[in-house]
């Protein structure tokens, strides 16, 4: 069992949890992920690691409630324990030798973009963080990004906070202003990463994306997390989750990601009904 040390709601649908998992904490690096199960009968769910404290032996995860399984996790409170927490899985994000990087985060993807931003900033790189949210109420981790970047650009779709517009517009403007990036790291919804890649391809800037496909074991056994990258079948769990964004077949990944949408919708509604009953 893995104890929840801390729980904090970051916005109406995004929660941060600090979990006691000393073995995972000892090895976790930015870009890697864990798989958790809340209860004995729960699904295995992959989540990218948001932070790790080697001394305290804790790992931080930040998740958005999207279906039955994240809803189930969200019902747990600090002091309680979850059934399984395995990791660190996947290959850590490569940061060696990078001098100037733009990190683009979208929505809850910002939670995953933060650790690599921190790592790059601490190793002395010039880091431009471009973070985007739908509106002001959904903004998370603003102070953390400010403290760990040379420049931070806040974007909202509706203009209720920061600048109005998409992260791609901000990125393109920075490139046109003459910023020469060694690499762009994009982490967020598939559609956002796809369009970031479309921009950077135009300017010939290497772009790394973090893929989060459907996954079961996460250790290189089931093959559910396969993607087409540069025309080859790759597995996000052992080959990724980071890939060269210019080679990823995003359209296919989006279709595969929607495979169980009906099931998730159903689970979410069933979960809500259950909650409603409890409230009554």
């Amino acid at each position, binding site marked *: 069992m893995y104890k929840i040390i801390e729980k904090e709601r970051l916005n109406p649908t995004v929660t941060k949890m600090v979990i006691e998992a000393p073995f995972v904490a000892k090895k976790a690096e930015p870009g890697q992920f864990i798989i958790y199960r809340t209860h004995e009968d729960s*699904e295995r769910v992959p989540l990218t690691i948001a932070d790790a404290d080697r001394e305290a032996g804790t790992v931080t995860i930040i998740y958005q409630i999207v279906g039955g399984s994240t809803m189930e996790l969200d019902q747990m409170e600090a002091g309680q324990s979850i059934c399984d927490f395995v*990791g660190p899985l996947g290959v850590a994000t490569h940061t060696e030798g990078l001098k100037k990087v733009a990190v683009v985060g979208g929505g809850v993807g910002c939670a995953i973009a933060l650790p690599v931003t921190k790592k790059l900033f601490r190793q002395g790189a010039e880091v431009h963080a471009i973070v985007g949210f739908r509106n002001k109420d959904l903004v998370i981790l603003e102070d953390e990004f400010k403290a760990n970047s040379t420049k931070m650009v806040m974007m909202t779709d509706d203009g209720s906070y920061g600048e109005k517009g998409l992260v791609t517009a901000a990125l393109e403007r920075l490139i046109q202003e003459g910023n020469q990036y060694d690499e762009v790291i994009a982490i967020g919804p598939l559609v956002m990463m796809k369009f970031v890649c479309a921009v950077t391809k135009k300017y010939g800037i290497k772009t790394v994306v973090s893929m989060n496909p459907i996954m*079961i074991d996460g250790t290189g*056994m089931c*093959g559910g997390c396969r993607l*087409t990258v540069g025309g080859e079948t790759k*597995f996000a769990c052992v080959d990724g989750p980071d890939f060269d964004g210019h080679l990823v077949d995003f359209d296919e990944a989006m*279709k*595969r990601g929607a495979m169980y949408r009906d099931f*998730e919708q159903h689970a979410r509604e069933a979960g809500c009904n259950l909650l409603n009953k409890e409230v009554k």
Partner: protein
Amino acid sequence: MAVTRNMDPKKCPMPSQDPNVRNKNFNEVALGYTYEMAINEAKRCLNCPKKPCRSACPVQIDIPAFISCVANEDLEGAYKVLSASSALPAVCGRVCPQETQCEGKCVRGIKGEPVGIGRLERFVADWHREHVTETPAAPAPNGHKVAVIGAGPSGLTAAGDLAKLGYKVTIFEALHLAGGVLVYGIPEFRLPKSIVQKEIDGLKAMGVDIECNMVIGKVLTIDELFEMGYEAVYVASGAGLPRFMGIPGESLKGVYSANEYLTRINLMKAYKDGSKTPIKHSRKVAVVGGGNVAMDAARSAKRLGAEEVYIVYRRGMEELPARKEEVEHAEEEGIIFKTLTNPVEVLGDENGEVCGMKCVEMELGEPDASGRRRPIVKEGSEFVLDVDTMIMSIGTSPNPLIRSTTPGLETNKHGCIVTNGDDGLTSREGVYAGGDAVTGAATVILAMGAGKHAAKAIDEYIKSKNA
């Protein structure tokens, strides 16, 4: 006590669920011999002095000895003989390919059917589980620690043998549950999970520790295990990632690897009402491949309610690598065999869902390097099979996690760990390996045999080092 030999040329048939009932449920297909059936079948054994059956058993069970105990109605004695050689008799009795091992060498098979060795093994193990409650005492510790990576059949066997010798064994398992392919791969209707659990509980009673959620290569490396005081490591991490054919359409929704399909159903219990793990409830399914895993996937799809399930295999019925019994069971349950057929493209609709599979017919040519006749495409034979799900079951390629984090561990061009002959020693001192991680996807019993050999070699290694 002398017994009257039973000279019936046929082996006693296995009582089973009716095919048209069982293809709608996940309960065990074979129901097991009754006491009388077992005693009668045991009396068919000639107790040959040369024991050809024993030499064909990968774990060298003294088969005539256990069977003569059964004939004498000494079932606990029979169990003792079995458990001296096998850590998992209730499992082996159910999933071993007996026809190519013990039963394939049985003298009774020359003029009739061989003795039902597998069925008797299962009967004895089940009898023991249902009637004997005392657990074996943990052996006296010898003060040495061994790490085993992977709680599948090979790792469990090695752990059991080492524990019997007094070693403190810790098994590191990547998944949340021990058992490996016995729990994520082989379906409930062929191997009930409660039986696997019981065998694992037996190992724990002998003092074996099982640490789940530990992915070696990620959370700890093999070198770190040595630093933690383990004197030897046995790598039994399994077969690895599924292979795909590389044909167009393999990423469409509704294309599964057999590993994913079976893991959802078995490990994650997607077949149960109210399971939180989604699975596609298909109408028409094509399973590509002809091994035991393909049979398991096809029979599972049928049980989930598919109207038509095909096995699509590029060679003929004779060449199917699956156990004969699995093929027969699949046929009885209404699985349709499209042999000498090979897919060339998966077809998708506008939503990216599978809506068909383009295939070609094959014919068999001259034998290839493997000695099997090579399938050749028949010109102009292209046709479309109407399916909404495709399950790929054409083998695996090794998992990279251990080889990429263990300096000096030699692997072959396929990525399998290279070992020195039978004892499982790798290119690293103190590191042994066996099972699918070495051989590529094979059978439960071969993995168990490798675990047995490695346990013996590890014992000799640690003794010689401390001599």
